[in-house]
């Protein structure tokens, strides 16, 4: 078991100017499940491969425990890439399928058996150990593949989009299995995905990257409640947060005819480069449907209602907001807002509803640089 530390680690591909990973500083605790997440090209896979030893580190260091592994060969780093390959051997028993890498490494037979049995117990495969893989279900075969990595008892597990080629149903199942298995084993794990739902459901902590730069690292709750900038705010959460940039006048943001009063500290944080604007974000689930009379009520014209049984979402446009309406964007696209409504009281298409942002669930960011402004 070990911690993992990225210390100002950078990777610059030959022939490019901008680093694929730019001075990454990240400390992963012993036994922690850390998810690297971000859009394609953000540097998450490169970061993982730097830890695996597959990418050169051009500056900075990478440590596993106290050991500097920056220049250590991949096979000598005591890490395991899980899931890269789970072809099983048809003539070998499940036990041999799990233990063959130890046999190659010259581990004594009794030790191999012991480690295989321990892994099988964790994976619920004990009764299948002497069978051939043909007799196993798809899910069990996958667990055998996991068993291969477990018996090696590495310091760190690395997983690069391991679920990407599974169908949707198996993906959700396997996601839960990996997460619970990792907790039982307590092995430090670094996991790469582009899917924020996967990140939120699996990670102890999540690190969001964009353009090679670490945007924020924190628990799923912290990322959701206090996104450090506009990018993280829009990336984490589904459906995505409604975000817009608005003019500030008389201590309030102007959304067309609606005034959203701002705290004094927020108004005080506005700088000349913000040009009198502020960026406000509110999640679909942070809106309440209220009466027109309520102060700060925002009129939304219903364009589409999405009913999911347990939830319902209204996709709509701000009414009478003029140019400001076009400035807002959400998971549904530009000039659209998403509102979660009571699935038992769903408005009709074409209706106008009034919504208010729940106190304390409004996020504000600098219009110029997108950084969070604390209230």
């Amino acid at each position: 078991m070990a911690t993992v530390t990225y210390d100002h680690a950078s990777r610059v591909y030959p022939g490019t100017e901008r680093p694929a990973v730019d001075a990454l500083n990240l400390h992963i605790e012993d036994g922690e499940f850390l998810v690297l997440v971000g859009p394609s090209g953000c540097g998450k896979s490169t970061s993982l491969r730097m830890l695996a030893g597959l990418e050169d580190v051009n500056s900075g260091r990478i440590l596993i425990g106290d050991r500097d592994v920056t220049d250590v060969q991949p096979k000598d780093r005591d890490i395991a890439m899980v899931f890269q390959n789970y072809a099983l051997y048809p003539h070998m028993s499940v036990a041999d399928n799990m233990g063959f890498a130890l046999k190659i490494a010259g581990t004594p037979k009794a030790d191999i058996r012991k480690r295989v049995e321990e892994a099988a117990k964790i994976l619920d495969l004990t009764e299948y150990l002497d069978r051939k893989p043909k007799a196993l279900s798809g899910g069990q075969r996958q667990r055998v593949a996991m068993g291969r990595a477990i018996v090696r008892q590495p310091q760190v597990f690395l997983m690069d989009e391991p679920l990407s080629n599974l169908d949707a149903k198996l993906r959700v199942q396997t996601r839960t299995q990996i997460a619970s298995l990792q907790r039982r084993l307590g092995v430090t794990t670094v996991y790469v995905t582009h899917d924020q739902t996967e990140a939120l459901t699996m990670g102890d902590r999540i690190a969001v990257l964009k353009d090679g730069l670490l945007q924020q690292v924190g628990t799923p709750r912290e990322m959701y409640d206090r996104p450090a900038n506009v990018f993280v705010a829009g990336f984490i959460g589904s459906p995505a947060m409604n975000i817009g940039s608005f003019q500030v006048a008389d201590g309030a943001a102007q959304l067309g005819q609606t005034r959203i009063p701002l705290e004094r500290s927020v108004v005080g944080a506005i700088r000349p480069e913000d040009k009198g604007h502020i960026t406000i974000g509110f999640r679909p689930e942070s809106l309440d449907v209220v009466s027109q009379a309520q102060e700060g009520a925002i009129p939304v014209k219903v364009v589409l209602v999405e009913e999911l049984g347990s939830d319902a979402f209204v996709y709509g446009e701000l009414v009478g907001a003029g140019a400001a309406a076009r400035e807002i964007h959400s998971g549904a696209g530009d000039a659209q807002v998403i509102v979660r409504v009571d699935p038992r009281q769903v408005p009709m298409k074409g209706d106008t509803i009034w919504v208010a942002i729940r106190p304390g669930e409004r996020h504000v960011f600098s219009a110029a640089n997108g950084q969070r402004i604390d209230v």
Partner: protein
Amino acid sequence: MPQSLQITAAAPDPALLDLPWHIPLEEWPDDVLAALPRGISRHVVRFVRLSGRVIAVKEIGETVAYREYELLRALNRLGVPSVEPVGVITGRRAPDGERLEAVLVTKHLQFSLPYRALFSQTLQPDTITRLIDALAVLMVRLHLTGFYWGDVSLSNTLFRRDAETFAAYLVDAETGDLHERLSDGQRAYDLEVARVNIIGELMDLEAGELLESDTDTVAIGGALVERYTELWDTLTGAEQFETGERWRVAARIEQLNRLGFDVGELDITTDVDGTTVRIQPKVVDAGHHSRRLMRLTGLDVQENQARRLLNDLDAYRAATDRQGEDEEFVAHDWLTTVFEPAVRAVPRDMRGKLEPAQMFHELLDHRWYISSEQNRDVPMGEAVASYVENVLRSRPDEKAVLGIETGTLPRITGP
């Protein structure tokens, strides 16, 4: 809901539309299948007959399918031995409206042999060594072009006979990545994965009693690492010598040619006072002999087959006393008076057994064998007749050896 298929292909074959895409691959009817694959694959794979050819169809996630398709196309453009992609088909739906997985379609590589089929034939003692050599060459070639495989194994490779050796082809690029150039870490990891996978696959053959039980599987895996490292160092290593030893530049190029590689770019640097020279090949391309044969005769064959054919061409040139003539003219005459008549003399129904160039290679071996036995120069016509009767007739058809059960593959029996 009716399905609306989307086919992405460079040169789509309309017959693709006739296949039962509305049925999960696992349930495809026997009459469209050429064979079932062997072993336990991560995905459902089927071999299917299409317009007189065989294609491989693999069910796989849509994004992964497109990615692998593009990668295989890139590898084909780069001239790396790999299977040829046909296309990606998405938008499949069962009649009840359920979505079906996207598929990647590739051409079956004619005359290729899966490693399991090779082990089921009467094994020459050094077959494993030759397979490992072929795989080492393939890995070096892939790494030279910047391709990281990620899952090197015997089962992700197909082998074609190449004179007395084998040529290896990449089959599965799902885990691969194409880079500008590979880091030492990437090469080392790819090699380690290859080593462990190969040993695992051999252990599996051992468990299935398809391999002599005293085979040292771990040593064979180690041999791959050794062969790869040797070849990589020879191809890319720098050497340094005195300015007076400039002949060593030509010697290095010749050495690489002998190994079957052309030098596309050579870095030559001298030190400040001009007493030593350092050379390092920067771009090397495999296929030195096959390119030369292609230029001379238009024949597109494997590297060692080309070597053999070029040797016969040289012998022909000497025997007909035409050393002073233009090589192209002599090559043309050799092609029309030696190679083609010999290959044409093989009865049509036996031409599916081996590729023409491989047949010609064996024919040369056979002629040498009967000539020394009868202590005379057996003419080609006679040698062909003897070869067909005594060797080829009893050989299995290798044009489309698919994933059949190893037990059912015909074995070579004596005449």
